[in-house]
């Protein structure tokens, strides 16, 4: 898996292997089971055993609670690996990001979060 993309109506999630960055774009309001392809993409990233990755959220306008659950579960999977540095690039002008992304520190204290 060098690059991978999951896309649907109004959203796209893709991994840029060269930049070790997962990009989230659009509006993600899917049912719980519909997040499986995105969860699989994220698991695939972990399987590469990178030392550091960035999650770029600045283009993700909406994320519903099922999506937040998918994201938090991924961060817990990162915590279990123990040696992967995660940075989240987020936007303070997107409401859900300011409200919910700070919770990531509760699951992975070493995570770095930029809310620009």
């Amino acid at each position, binding site marked *: 898996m060098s690059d991978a993309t999951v896309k649907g*109506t*109004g959203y796209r999630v893709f991994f840029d292997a060269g930049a070790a960055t997962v990009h989230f774009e659009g*509006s993600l*309001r*899917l*049912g*719980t*089971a*519909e997040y499986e392809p995105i969860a699989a993409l994220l698991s695939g990233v972990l399987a590469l055993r990178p030392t550091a990755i960035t999650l770029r959220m600045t283009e993700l306008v*909406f994320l*519903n*609670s*099922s999506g*937040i*659950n998918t994201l*938090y*579960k991924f961060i*817990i*999977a990162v915590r279990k690996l123990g040696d992967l540095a995660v940075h989240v690039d987020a936007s303070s*002008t*997107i*409401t*859900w990001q300011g*409200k*919910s992304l700070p*919770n990531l520190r*509760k*699951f992975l204290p070493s995570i770095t979060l930029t809310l620009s």
Partner: protein
Amino acid sequence: MNESIGDFRDLTRGGARVSLVFHSGGVPVRWSQCSATAEYFAEYFADVHAQACADDADRNEFIGTLSYIVNELVENAVKFSMGEAVEVTVSIEGEELVALVSNQILATTVEGLIEKFRGLVAGDPTEMLIARVEANAVNPDAGVSGLGFLTMMADYGATLGWYFGAVQDNPQNVLLKTMARLPMRNQ
């Protein structure tokens, strides 16, 4: 049946109010339609609330908050509705923004829901959110995330309430009303 849990209060008649009623007609309501509904209410009430939105950042915050809350409530209602109408109402009541969703559910699910909702209003929302996420992480087969109400309370400061009432002529169903209240000054 006539039971309330949490902060459920009947709407007053004073403030701005908009209601939409879905009649699916047997066609399943898609998640994208829940999202479109949420965005409609958020944009509409951003203009009602315009005098309190000092700048674009305030407006974005208001829209993002109301859109999230209504989307979660409507997704829940659609997910568990027993084929009857789903009614969505948003109202400004004094210093509060109120979102109310009504739908019918199976009577056999009521007992479990009452226990769940009592638990939600009794604990610390952030602690319950963390515990639920950790539980979800070790239970990959869970069909639902269970984070909708918890994120509303923990991340958005919403207070929640529920009402269960009888459905005339159909004892197999129960009317469920779910209410979220948000302090306007925080929007």
